[in-house]
């Protein structure tokens, strides 16, 4: 009924949901890019998917900038302004990690050795599952839905699983006969992949705190 008086608020709401949709596109695209790279390293399709990921990441930055400008225009109440910006900036670190992984694969001409492909795929899939659960958790927070804690616990489990895979992968890399220089590069790549679920877990805990803070 009062939406007419809250045009800017409605715009912020639209932008936040479009940010989340865009975030889903980024990690969806990232998954395709990694799979493509594993099947056929450094092919044209990988290049295209990497460019797409970068395009979506840039769009995410544009959305955050627009939200930021609206926030400076005093949209929403101060507590919500602060919480939403803190949340978006925390989520925005994840696309950054995804892009770093793709850049490492492309610019360092990294080829994932056959012996670690299954675990690497597991690491990517579980990391992206944590991103998927995170976007659900954020939507639940915005809509004041139920099940926030369950989603937080789920993401926490994914993160522990990823940590476990990450350690195993690094061990496997250093136990293999690969060139030592490549080993270091692969180690860096694996750590970067592990950062995805670590950041998702941090954001998930932040979402939980914001939800508790909003309870009166």
């Amino acid at each position, binding site marked *: 009924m009062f939406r007419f008086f809250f045009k800017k608020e409605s715009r912020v709401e639209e932008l936040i949901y479009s940010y989340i949709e865009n975030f889903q596109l980024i990690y969806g695209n990232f998954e395709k890019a990694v799979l493509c790279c594993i099947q056929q390293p450094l092919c044209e399709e990988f290049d295209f998917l990497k460019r797409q990921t970068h395009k979506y990441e840039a769009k995410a930055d544009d959305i955050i900038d627009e939200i930021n400008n609206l926030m400076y225009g*005093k949209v929403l109440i101060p507590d919500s302004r602060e919480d939403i910006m803190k949340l978006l900036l925390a989520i925005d670190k994840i696309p950054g990690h995804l892009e770093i992984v793709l850049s490492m694969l492309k610019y360092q001409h990294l080829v994932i050795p056959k012996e670690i492909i299954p675990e690497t795929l597991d690491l990517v899939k579980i990391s992206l599952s944590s991103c998927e659960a995170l976007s659900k958790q954020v939507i639940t927070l915005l809509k004041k*839905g139920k099940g926030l804690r369950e989603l937080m616990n789920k993401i926490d489990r994914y993160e522990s699983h990823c940590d476990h895979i990450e350690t195993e992968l690094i061990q496997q890399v250093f136990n293999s006969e690969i060139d030592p220089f490549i080993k270091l590069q692969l180690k860096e790549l694996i750590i970067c992949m592990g950062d995805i679920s670590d950041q998702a877990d941090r954001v998930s805990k932040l979402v939980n705190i914001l939800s508790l803070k*909003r309870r009166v």
Partner: protein
Amino acid sequence: MLSLLGGIFMGWSLGANDASNIFGTAVASRMIKFWTAAILASLFVILGALISGQAGIETLQGLTSFDLPQAIIASVAAALSVSIMTLMGWPVSSSQAVVGAILGIGILNSQINVSGLGKVLICWFTTPVGGAIITILLYRSIAFYYNRIPISLFSADRLLKIGFIFFGSYSAYALGANNVANVTAVFVGAGKLSVFQAALIGGLSIAFGILTFSRPVMETVGKKLVELDPFSALMVSISLGITIHIYTIIGVPVSSSQAIIGGVLGIGIIKGTNTVSMKTLKNIFLGWFLTPVVACVLAIIISFGSYLEYTGP
């Protein structure tokens, strides 16, 4: 018109200072633009004064009997004591200043309505206590539903903003109805103004104070209350309106600052934190005691001064 200047000054200063209690939180946190708040507050103060200001005016004019010079002295003494105490940085309530000044005139006339005065004193004491109790009751009952209604973060935001505007306007109405007596009741007692004229002039002078000088006060005082979370701040705002409205029905002008401090104290009790420092509480008690005393003494001194005549060398 000149004889009303003391009262008009009193109304102006009341509007400039007390508007911050109503819309301070919302304006300081940029939830509402200053001019939206100022216009709403002015409009509702005038409406409150005209529609419900009669009871307070009758209570104050009934505390003693005045002639016009005494009414002028009472209003000037009250206005002066508010100004002096504000300049000295002491907490001040215009309601207490006016009653103190009327009491001074009553002492000189040897005529004080003791039962009326007793009613006023009880109301002064119960204002912050009432503010705290109402805030606690409101918070507990509204929070119960607020936590359970399935509305999005954005809808909750809109609801809070609408709440601030709606209940801010209601508090402004209650403030106008309650405090207009401080501005012009003495002139009704002296037969200079009718109740309607007193309510109109009083309401307009409070509104003038809000429109011309409330911005800096709103922004500084409001920031002190912003430290409360938005929901708590809204509960304090609703409680302020209800508390003042109750005293308006009883017919006793009370201090909106003391009502709001009671409300903030109530939030502190709910959350188990110190929302009001001991220093602020001491200042309230100091204000309770000093304001009427200073106004009473000033009224007596000015009255004696008015009898002095120049006799020449």
